[in-house]
């Protein structure tokens, strides 16, 4: 491991981060290693039926990732590199679809179009995860060198567009890779479309099925093939990510957005509005409509039913929302501390160590959430851990461990742009490690730190699969939503979904507000 000046004072903190991550992220994964000592598990793992399910999950996730790229890439290009009325608003709304629970999006699109089956599953995943490539594309295009863009424009506008496509291809692929990972491990969306239409199964459902026979070890090990596929995608992504870390397209100032002229001034906002309608507006509008939807024989009005549904959502669902925000908030707070330490540690490692750490850090993200639940129960449901097992610290730790890589990647990008010399000067001036880390490495980028924690909170709050299994997370808002959906409490589900989404949007909106205040200052 190569360490720069001051690494000695950093070691205790890095060790602390590794110990906490070990408990939060790696201990629940230990049952996955069982096939290494029980080979019979391996032989039953991939029979013809499960191989078929794995293959189906793989191509569903691949098509979902391609759709996410197809939607997210143009959206990001249009609103990042062109200036027209409303471009700022479109940029602001870009990450929000990512925060909507996929199950809610599935419910909305089924209500809107009646679509079911595998195609509906692919569509839902594509829509839900389109912000991943969009955000990365927007970031890379936001840093395009003015000189290279203007040179391209001098040749021809078409050449300028081609240069944008070339610059944003890798980020789009990285975003697609992450979309693949999320789609492959999701059990609830395919399950929903199978309940409202013709039955079909995916590999994540096969893993979830082990909770029915309570063979949690088999459940955990069954996720191994999916983890290996995820690992391949991650390794591909890691190469791409490496080339993107601290990416600046040339030196000097960044290219400004081009003014849209003539018909483009009307066409571009309309195009983006159409994409946003698919990503955000239509699902939310449909869910809102469903808060008061009744059968044709009902004597109650839409507004009466809707009002009652929202009231019920608040009264019945309040305790679950509080519980969810408690453990998700705690997870976010943990990431506020862990993510900078991890990002700093990764920055200070040589290439091979860096790759290893990134892979270890990302492992919990590759494991389907339900398998993480199995692993946690197997490892933590011990008589001497009773209090910890039942407390909200356990789901908080698991969420922090699972989504820590997202927070770390955000900070890694920011921190890699700060020159090492700045930190070394601070050390020579007698600053402690934490001062150097938070004041000099992250000092100018606190909003990125809050964004990282906010995303962990948002992802944690919508986490469903392991919450179904873990007693401490069983009374979460996501589980209540899932249960009510399957028990056909349609009005309540819709109202509760709207409340949940409003809460998830808050951290991102808060971040946007924070940014605007900073820019004003």
């Amino acid at each position, binding site marked *: 491991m190569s360490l720069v000046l001051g690494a000695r004072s950093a070691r205790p903190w890095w060790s602390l981060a590794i110990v906490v991550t070990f408990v939060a992220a790696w201990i629940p994964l230990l049952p996955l290693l069982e096939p290494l000592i029980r080979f019979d598990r391996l032989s039953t793992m991939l029979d013809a*039926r499960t191989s078929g399910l794995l293959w189906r999950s793989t191509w569903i996730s691949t098509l979902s990732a391609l759709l996410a790229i197809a939607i997210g890439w143009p959206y990001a290009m249009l609103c990042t590199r062109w200036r027209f009325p409303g471009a700022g608003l479109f940029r602001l709304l870009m990450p929000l679809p990512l925060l909507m629970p996929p199950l809610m999006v599935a419910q909305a699109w089924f209500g809107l179009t009646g679509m079911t089956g595998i195609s509906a599953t692919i569509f839902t995943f594509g829509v839900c995860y389109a912000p991943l490539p969009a955000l990365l594309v927007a970031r890379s295009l936001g840093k395009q060198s003015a000189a290279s863009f203007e040179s391209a424009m001098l040749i021809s506008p078409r050449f300028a567009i081609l240069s944008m496509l070339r610059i944003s291809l890798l980020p789009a692929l990285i975003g697609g890779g992450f979309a693949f990972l999320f789609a492959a491990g999701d059990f609830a969306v395919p*399950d929903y479309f*199978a*309940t*409202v239409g013709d*039955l079909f*199964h995916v590999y994540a459902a096969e893993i*979830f*099925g082990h*909770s*029915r*026979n*309570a*063979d949690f070890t088999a459940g955990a090990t069954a996720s191994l093939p999916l983890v290996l596929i995820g690992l391949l995608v991650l390794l591909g992504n890691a190469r791409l990510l490496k080339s993107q870390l601290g990416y600046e397209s040339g030196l000097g100032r960044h290219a400004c957005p081009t003014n849209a002229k003539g018909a483009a001034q009307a066409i571009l906002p309309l195009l983006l509005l159409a994409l946003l309608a698919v990503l955000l507006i239509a699902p939310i509008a449909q869910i809102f409509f469903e808060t008061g939807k*009744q*059968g*044709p*024989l*009902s004597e*109650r009005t839409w507004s009466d039913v809707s009002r009652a549904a929202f009231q019920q959502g608040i009264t*019945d669902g309040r*305790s*679950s929302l*509080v*519980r969810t925000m*408690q*453990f998700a*908030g*705690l997870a976010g*707070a943990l990431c*506020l*501390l862990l993510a900078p330490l991890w990002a700093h540690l990764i920055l200070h490692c040589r290439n091979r160590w860096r790759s290893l750490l990134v892979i270890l850090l990302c492992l919990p993200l590759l494991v389907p959430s339900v398998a993480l639940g199995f692993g946690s129960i197997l490892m933590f*449901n*011990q008589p001497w851990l*009773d*209090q910890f*097992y*039942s*407390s*909200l*610290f356990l789901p*908080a730790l698991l969420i922090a461990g699972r989504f820590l890589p997202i927070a770390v990647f955000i900070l890694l990008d920011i921190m890699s742009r700060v020159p090492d010399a700045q930190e070394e000067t601070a050390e020579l001036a007698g600053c402690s490690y934490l001062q150097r880390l*938070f*004041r000099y490495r992250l000092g100018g980028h*606190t909003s990125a730190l809050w964004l990282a924690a906010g995303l962990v909170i948002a992802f944690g709050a919508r986490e469903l699969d392991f919450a*179904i299994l873990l*007693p*401490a997370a*069983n*009374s979460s808002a996501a*589980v*209540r939503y*899932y*249960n*009510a959906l*399957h*028990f*056909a*409490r*349609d009005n309540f589900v819709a109202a509760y979904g709207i409340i949940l989404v409003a809460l998830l949007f808050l951290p991102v909106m808060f971040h946007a507000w924070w940014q605007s205040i900073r820019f004003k200052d």
Partner: protein
Amino acid sequence: MRNALAALLTCLFALSCSDSTGSSSSADLVVYCSLDQDLSEGILNDFEQRTGLKIETQFDVERNKTVGLVNRIITEAKNNPRADVYWNNEIAHTLRLKNEGLTSAYKSPSAQGIPASFIDPEGHWTGFAARARVILYRTDRKGPVPNKLDDFLDPAYAAGGAMAQPLTGTTLTNATALSLIRGNQQMLDWFEQAEKAGLSFGSGNADVMRRTCNGDFLWCFTDTDDAAKAIAAGNPVAVRYLEQGDGSLGAMLIPNSISILNSGKNQGAAKQFVDYVLSVEVERRLAFSVSQQIPLHEGVAMPEGVAVPGTDYQVMDVDWAAVAGAISDRATAFQEAFVK
């Protein structure tokens, strides 16, 4: 920055200490509950308020209905048992727990008035608040609606109908009881013939009910609680009881059941809770809930229009002990037949 971080962490720590929903670290009672969360939760909360006892609840999900929690209780019993009480939304799996030696005997005074056929003679479980298996059909469409189970095999009926796969919950219990009457292989053949005749299979009772309300099917085979929800939501649907008339089997009535687990650490609180859940008050509450569960105590008022078992329709005789003995094997057989 440091101050903001410290303030945030302090707030979150305080929040987590003021845990409002309970955890077994300080819980006086741990309940595993298979009845729908929105129906059972209010009852659990009321019990907490009345007694001051703190309950930790593990709710079931539709996809694993009953089977998941029961298998979990069995697995946990070998390692670190957690549950004090199991509130099942059906009965056969509760008997399975008794057969596994995991329940303890308790004859609740609140069970007085419940017919003896719904109470274990040794006191290991008590049934209450039942549902019947029924046909829910659309009243705005013309087409044949089954009167008996074997109508499901007739393409004229089956093409417009649906039922849940017999993998979990009351559908599994129902299919197991029928397989004891008809024979295991005959029941598997029956399902195969029904599918060939055009019957659709969904994931759960609520799912096929919803699809019937949406117009995908003319009728579905479901439970009275799902049917009550569909009617209350203003859908043009009505209920029909199967197998009525001389010599017919009758409609299957499946009660909730409750039992105390012998590995529980809070036996006193568990008895208090069982007394409360088996009370006339709770049965009335479930009867007037959206699910309109059928009270088993004599003389408990029911909402207008709810049919009374034994009076308004004929009820199937079920040997619950035999069903409990067979349900695990039948579940495996059905799983192999249905999960492809």
